């Protein structure tokens, strides 16, 4: 990426320009109907704002409405990380992927906050396997459907454990079919880890 550097008044941060989107790691939550239709990627932290298929997602600040996200003095913006390992701390992720970031992008020590973003590659993950083994864990076999249309990819072992503790999903779908339908919905490629 060719970039030019200039002195910046933006909070003392260096300001550079570029012509190619930045690629970063990201995790999403996933919602969809009981039959696996209307699949939608959503932020893990605040699930109310979906990432609509085939449209750039634009950041909006919910903390202070008088600045445009991302703002140097805020935490707003669409997040991505340099390394995949940091995402193991994410709360209840369902999808792991690579995301393209552009517009105003603030680079941090371990990741980015951007104004515009769109997924490039995706893969369903069992959140328990991801938490324990990282991105190299085996792909989940199932996707559990829960009320409010929450979809949770889960492996054989953890589905059995969840059922034993009375936390079984109301309905179970085949993960491979949901994974493929998600990629078709967003027109993205499979993430190979």
């Amino acid at each position, binding site marked *: 990426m060719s*970039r030019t550097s200039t002195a*910046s008044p*933006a*909070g003392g*941060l*260096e*300001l*550079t*320009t*570029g*012509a*190619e*989107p*930045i690629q970063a790691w990201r995790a999403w939550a996933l919602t969809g109907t009981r039959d696996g239709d209307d699949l939608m990627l959503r932020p893990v932290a605040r699930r109310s704002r979906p990432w609509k298929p*085939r*449209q*750039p997602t*634009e950041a909006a600040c919910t903390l202070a409405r008088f600045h445009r996200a991302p703002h*140097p003095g805020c935490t707003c913006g669409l*997040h991505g*990380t340099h390394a995949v390992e*940091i*995402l193991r*701390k*994410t709360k209840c992720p369902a999808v792991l992927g690579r995301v*393209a*970031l*552009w*517009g*105003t*992008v*603030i*680079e*941090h*020590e*371990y*990741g*980015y*906050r951007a104004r*515009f973003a*769109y997924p*490039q590659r995706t893969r369903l993950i069992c959140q328990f396997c991801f938490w324990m083994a990282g991105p190299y864990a085996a792909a989940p076999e199932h996707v559990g459907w829960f009320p409010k249309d929450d979809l949770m990819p889960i492996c054989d072992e953890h589905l059995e454990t969840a059922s034993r503790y009375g936390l079984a999903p109301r309905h179970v779908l085949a993960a491979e079919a949901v994974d493929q339908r998600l990629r078709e919905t967003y*027109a993205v490629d499979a993430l190979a880890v």
Partner: protein
Amino acid sequence: MDIGQPKRIIEIMPTAIPVPGELEPDLAPARTPEREPEREPQPAGPESADRRSR
């Protein structure tokens, strides 16, 4: 998720937006509109009158 301290701001204006399908015009990269070349005024005369009648 803690991504640490901010280091720099990057303004990225991509030549190609990485989203399949149609784009909203205000999300496409800004481009300078091309100006049409100025044309020489056509003198009024029998030839131009003849062209108009065609």
